[in-house]
């Protein structure tokens, strides 16, 4: 039994040694990435080649989880960089004092439009995603085409009573994309009352998934026929996986701006700055376009293969500040008026 005692004491020693030692290294750049693992791996590889620094990544394709983690780790930040995820996540972190501002010298050369970065340098937008409508071709041709119904291509097509119960959207309460969709309808229809009348009609047709990717899976698996989601996610999760899915960007669509930011108090502030400089160059934007099918924010980088050029898309006049300021109120109103 002496052995047990020894094992226990070693375990306890291990607990303390490990809990004390972490967070002390400074040569690595630790990245929290909200992008898929293919893009993250390629971007980090390119950065390592360019800078000679080593990197370490937590890749969780869920920006909310990472922003929660950054909030929870406030007293002892574990990471240097928050990579990817809509600026709707980066901006609140900056407001809560969790990000470090940085004026990147690469910004001048990158020639980003002013809407794509924070004037104080808290976050930089390095890719754009746009909302799309998509449908399951098999089921559509079998069940709807014979009844003379045309494939959905505009927001109003989603109200077609023939689609009752067959439309899936990410929930505006629990996803960023779902909220941007609701705000889009307000901007498109001119005022809130008209938008909520429209949304009420939509809700009669639709179900709302608590996670954004959930809806894409449902349509590609034929559990539902029509969906609304980020175009690049539809392409990479459904179309490129061999599922019978067609995707279109409707007129009056809206975008998310994918950000990168420096976490305040992270272990390697100098490496973090180098990383932001690197993200604003062309290489990572091309990588993201190639593997993630997301549009670059740099005007000199081409659109992703197989996606329509960004200039061919028709965007609604989206007031980001208004949308963020009214987010909590609109979410509660959605629950009270729509109840889904």
């Amino acid at each position: 039994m002496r052995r047990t005692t020894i094992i226990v004491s070693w375990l306890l020693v291990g607990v303390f040694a490990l809990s004390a030692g972490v967070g002390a290294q400074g040569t690595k750049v630790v990245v929290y990435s909200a992008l898929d693992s293919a893009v993250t791996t390629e971007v980090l590889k390119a950065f390592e080649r360019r800078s000679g620094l080593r990197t370490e990544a937590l890749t969780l394709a869920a920006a909310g989880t990472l922003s929660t983690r950054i909030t929870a780790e406030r007293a002892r930040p574990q990471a240097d960089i928050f990579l990817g995820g809509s600026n709707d996540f980066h901006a609140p972190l900056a407001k809560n004092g969790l990000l470090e501002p940085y004026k990147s010298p690469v910004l001048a050369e990158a020639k980003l439009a002013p809407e794509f970065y924070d004037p104080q340098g808290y976050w930089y937008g390095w890719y754009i995603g746009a909302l799309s409508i998509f449908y399951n071709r098999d089921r559509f041709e079998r069940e709807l085409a014979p009844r003379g119904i045309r494939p959905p291509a505009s927001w109003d097509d989603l109200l077609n009573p023939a689609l009752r119960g067959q439309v899936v959207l990410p929930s505006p309460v629990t996803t960023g994309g779902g909220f941007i969709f609701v705000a889009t309808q307000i901007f498109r229809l001119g005022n809130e009352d008209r938008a909520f009348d429209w949304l009420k009609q939509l809700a009669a047709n639709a179900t709302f998934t608590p996670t954004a990717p959930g809806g894409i899976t449902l349509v590609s698996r034929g559990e539902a026929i029509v969906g609304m989601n980020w175009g690049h996610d539809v392409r990479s999760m459904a179309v490129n996986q061999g599922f019978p899915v067609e995707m279109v960007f409707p007129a009056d669509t809206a975008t998310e701006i994918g950000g990168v930011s420096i976490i305040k108090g992270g272990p390697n502030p100098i490496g973090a700055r180098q990383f932001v400089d690197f993200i604003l160059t062309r290489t990572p934007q091309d990588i993201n376009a190639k593997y993630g099918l997301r549009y670059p924010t740099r005007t000199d980088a081409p659109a992703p293969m197989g996606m329509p050029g960004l200039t061919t898309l028709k965007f609604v006049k989206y007031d980001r500040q208004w949308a963020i300021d009214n987010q909590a109120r609109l979410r509660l109103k959605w629950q009270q008026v729509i109840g889904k």
Partner: protein
Amino acid sequence: MAVRALTLKGQGRDPGLVAAFVVMSAVLLGFVLYPTYRVISYPTLADYLAVPANPRWLAAMRNSLMMMVLSTTTASLVGFVYAYGMTREDLPGRRGFRLISLLPLFAPPFMVAFAYILMFGRQGLVTRALLGLDVNIFGWQGLWLVQTVAFFPYAALIMEHIFEAINPTLEHAARDLGAREWTLFRTVTLPLARPGIAAAMLLVAISVLADFGNAVVIAGSLPLLATEAWFRIEGLGDLNGAALSVSLLLLPTVALFIFERAWVSRRLYTGITGRGSRLARPATPWFFRWPLFGFCLIVAAFVLLVYVAVLAGAFARTWGYNWSFTLDHWRLGMTQGGAQLVNSVRVGAISALLTSIIALITAFLTSRRQWPSVERTLDFLAVLPGALPGVFIGIGFLLAFNAPPFALGGTPWILILALTFWHIPFGYQAAAAGLKQIDRAIEEAAQDLGASGLRVLKDVYLPLLRGPFLSSFVTSFIRAVTNLSIVVFLVTPRNLVATYSILAMIGGGFWGAAAALTTALLLVTFVAVGVARVAVARGIRGLPVA
């Protein structure tokens, strides 16, 4: 008795024992009560007061309670009948049925839901390919079916013990007095089993309320308290909302738990009669036996379908569209999840070891009868995690151990310790039950020879309690490697685990890779159980495993 009381009272307080009491109290207070406090106190009072005005919170509470009632009723009913069948000695294939009822206990908690989507969804092998039906399995009906299958084994296991313990002489006596089969069941079996039924239902109810894995996969757009916490964090980064929803979930689970401890567990009659009788059970008449057999067969088929679906899913190219054989999913699953699988085993083994050690020491201390108030507190702290849903523990550790003085965030220890303390009740109850069976005379003999309190633990109880220790280790290990509800909140960059990757794969539509990785995870748990059985057979015996 008087002599024993005298020796215990007469002896002074052993300094080693006092130190052990202090350390264990500090450990349990720090890792069980402190995180609990952090979660409950994170939302402000205003947040709690705003709950009735928020339709989504109300819907989530309503739905959680509705699922609890529905799934608890069916799972307990199925478990009851199934256990009744298993304990009829003349039921054909009863050993097979028993084995099958244990299978879901080894499965990751989301596996039933995942498998039933593959089998009964719109592209389901059964619904579409075989029956040509068009079924939407997402929603409360699907969740109801899944939770029934996932949780009936809990009820069946408890009921089986109860039925086994009913002395066959009672049945013989009733029959000799002329009772017919139904009368016998109604007037003898059922009344004796009633407290067991209550215990089983409460355990199932707590599990259903806290069920995260199945709900996150199959509940669709149905808001539930257990999953709402995760959606709040994943979609919005809303830590406040997450803490609020798990705090709301805590109310009913703790209420059920206290009710179980205070009322039901005191009314288990069957233990009194013991297992003294070797008398064979009377034969079951055919009109009872064959419906029972048919019932067990159907239930067993539903369980086996889970495994068939996952295995088939791991090898079919594109489920529902292209049924050709492929190994691509294994390639993808292993490149993206192989390292995580190894890490799962490591995390599981360390946490299970810690669980078993802490549980054993705690059980030893609470059996001392030296400081009744301290012992009662320790006992309460050691069983309390059983009432805490996994999502609650996950958020509790996230909030409590990311800042000094306990900055474990970013290390594997935050996850390991969360799993460790969540599983304490299993080890603790096994060890406490084992301790009760050891005659105090052995300990007194050791003390008379001059052994200190801790020496008694080390040289007397540890060797005798190897059985409960092993059973606690295996149970905790399996639960740790298959856990999802805690893992989703606490994985770190260097310490991803397999279940997390599987959830990401299911969510991302990579169902084949998810099925492959799930199969690999199942293999790990079966190997663990196998090794434990061999170890027992080789003589690591101690007391019989509870």
